[in-house]
C-alpha cells in the first residue's frame, strides 16, 4: 500500500489543490486544527504499515476507513472467544476485551478487563500478518503446484517445459543446483525440500510485501516472529542431523588442551551454534523491514511537504515518486537476494554440520 497509495494520493492532491484550494486553506488558517487533522502522524503511519493489526486497513476514501475485519481469537478468564475485529474498532470494548491504547501496557494488543486489572489473554487472532501469510502461502502453493502440474501432462524426459512451468523449473533447479547442492554436498536431497520451501516462501512473501495494495503489502518477512520461526527451522535442521564430527568440533575441538580444560573454545562454539541462526533471523527481518520503512519514508515526503506550498510540494513529490520507483526496483532485487542469502547460508550451515573429518 505504499507506491500505489502514494501515486494515487499525489494525483488526488493535485486535483484537490486546483479544485478545492479554499477548502484546504480553511483548516490551515487555524494552527490547532492542522495539528489535529491535517498533519501526518509519522509514527502511526510507519508502524501502521510495518506492524501487525487486528483488522486489515485497505485504504481511506473521503475520511472513511475501508478495513477488512479479521477474526479475533482469544482465550481469557471467561474461556474462548471468537469475534470480528470490527467490534473492537476505535477503542470499543466487546465482552470485556479491547485493544490497548497508545502508551498503555500491551500497546496495540487485545487485552481483557478483569475487575480493575488489564490482563493479556491467550491470543491467536487471525491478524493482518496471519491473514497475509495465509494469502501468500496459498499463492506460493498454487504457483508451485501449477509448475508441478505440467509434469503430469507431459513426458518430462522427452521435452522441457515452456512458459510458466519453465520459469518454476528454472528457479527450482537454480536453487537446488547452485545453492543446495553446492553448499551441502552429497546428502543434499534430504534437505532440499525444506530449503526449497524456505526459499520460495521467503521470496513470495517478500514480493507480496512490495505489492502496495490489498492482497500484498503486509510486512511478513519483515516481522521478527516469521524470521524467528524460519531461523529456528534451520537451527533444528543443522543440529538435529549434525554428525559426530560436528559435535566433536563443538565440544572437543582440535585446539590446545588449556583452551578445553577451561572450556573457552567449547563455550565459543556453543554460542556459535546460536549466533548462526540468530544472524539469519536478524538479517532477513532487518533487510525487509528497512526496505519497507525506506519506501514508506520516501512516500511520506509527499504528505510532509504539503504545507510547504504548491511548488515545493510538487517538486518534492516528483522526486519522491522517482525515488520511490527506484526503491521499489531495489526492493525487488532485495526480495530475491534475501531469499537467496537465507537459503544459501542455511545450506552452508547444514553443510558444515555434515562435514566429514579431513583425512590426515
Amino acid at each position, binding site marked *: 500500500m505504499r507506491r500505489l497509495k502514494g501515486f494515487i494520493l499525489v494525483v488526488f492532491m493535485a486535483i484537490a489543490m486546483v479544485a478545492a484550494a479554499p477548502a484546504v486553506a480553511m483548516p490551515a488558517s487555524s494552527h490547532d486544527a492542522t495539528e489535529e487533522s491535517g498533519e501526518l502522524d509519522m509514527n502511526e503511519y510507519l*508502524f501502521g504499515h*510495518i*506492524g*501487525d*493489526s487486528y483488522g486489515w486497513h485497505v485504504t481511506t476514501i473521503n475520511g472513511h476507513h475501508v478495513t477488512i475485519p479479521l477474526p479475533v*481469537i482469544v482465550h481469557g478468564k471467561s474461556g474462548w472467544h471468537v469475534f470480528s475485529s470490527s467490534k473492537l474498532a476505535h477503542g470499543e470494548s466487546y465482552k470485556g476485551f479491547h485493544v490497548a491504547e497508545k502508551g498503555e501496557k500491551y*500497546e*496495540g*494488543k487485545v487485552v481483557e478487563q478483569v475487575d480493575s486489572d488489564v490482563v493479556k489473554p491467550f*491470543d*491467536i*487472532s*487471525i*491478524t493482518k*500478518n*496471519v491473514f497475509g*501469510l*495465509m494469502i501468500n*502461502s496459498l499463492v*506460493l*502453493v498454487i504457483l*508451485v*503446484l501449477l*509448475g*508441478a502440474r505440467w*509434469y503430469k501432462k507431459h513426458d*518430462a*524426459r*522427452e521435452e*522441457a517445459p515452456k512458459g510458466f512451468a519453465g520459469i*518454476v*523449473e528454472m528457479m*527450482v*533447479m537454480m536453487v*537446488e543446483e547452485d545453492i543446495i547442492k553446492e553448499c551441502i554436498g552429497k546428502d543434499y536431497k534430504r534437505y*532440499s*525440500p*525444506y530449503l*526449497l*520451501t524456505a526459499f*520460495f*516462501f521467503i521470496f513470495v512473501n517478500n514480493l507480496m510485501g512490495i505489492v502496495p495494495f490489498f492482497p500484498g503489502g503486509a510486512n511478513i518477512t519483515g*516481522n*521478527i*516472529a*516469521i524470521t*524467528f*520461526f*524460519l531461523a529456528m*527451522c534451520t537451527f533444528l535442521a543443522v543440529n538435529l542431523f549434525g554428525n559426530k564430527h560436528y559435535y566433536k568440533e563443538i565440544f572437543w575441538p582440535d585446539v590446545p588442551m588449556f583452551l578445553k580444560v577451561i572450556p573457552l573454545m567449547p563455550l565459543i562454539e556453543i554460542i556459535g551454534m546460536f549466533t548462526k541462526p540468530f544472524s539469519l533471523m536478524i538479517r532477513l527481518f532487518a533487510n525487509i*523491514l528497512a526496505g519497507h520503512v525506506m519506501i514508506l519514508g520516501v512516500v511520506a515526503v509527499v504528505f510532509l511537504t504539503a504545507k510547504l506550498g504548491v511548488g515545493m510540494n510538487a517538486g518534492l513529490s516528483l522526486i519522491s515518486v522517482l525515488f520511490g520507483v527506484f526503491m521499489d526496483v531495489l526492493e525487488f532485487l532485495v526480495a530475491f537476494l534475501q531469499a537467496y542469502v537465507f537459503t544459501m547460508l542455511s545450506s552452508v550451515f547444514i553443510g558444515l554440520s555434515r562435514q566429514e573429518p579431513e583425512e590426515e
Partner: protein
Amino acid sequence: MSLITPDFGLLFWMTLIFAIVFFVLAKFGFPIITGMVDERNVRISESLRKAREAEAALNELSVRQKEMIEQARQEQAAILKDAAQVRDAMIAQAKTQASDEAAKIVAQARTQIAAEKESAMAEVRSQLAELSVAVAEKVMRTQLESDKAQVELVNRMVEELSRNQKMN
C-alpha cells in the same frame, strides 16, 4: 505492537501454515519437479552417449562401405578379365573346330570326287571297250570275209591261248 519481540499468535499461525505449506510442497511440489529434471538429465546424457555411439558406428559403417565398394570393384575387374579369357578361348576353340570340320568335309568331298571319277572312268572304259569291240567286229567282219584270213586268225588265237596257259 513491538517490532523486535516475536508475537506468540503470529508464531503459532506461522508454525501451522509453514508446516502445511512445507508438507504440500515437499510432497506434491518440489520432488516432482526435481525428480523429473533429474530423469530428463539422465535421459539427455544417455541420448548423448547413444548419439556418440551411433556416430562411431556410422563412421565404421562408411569405412566398411568403402571397403566393400573397393572389393566389389576388384571382383568386377577379375570377373571381366575371366570373361574375356573365356571368350577368347571359346572363339579359338570354335575356330579350330570349324577348320577341322571344314578339312573333314573337304577330304570327304575329295574321296567322293575320286570315287565318282573312278566310276566315271570305269564307265568310260567299259563303253570304250564296247565301242572298240564293235569297231573291232566291224573291222573283223570286213577282214574275215575270206576263209583263209579266218583260219589264220583262229590259229593265232589258239596259239596265244596256249601260250597264256603255258605261262600259267
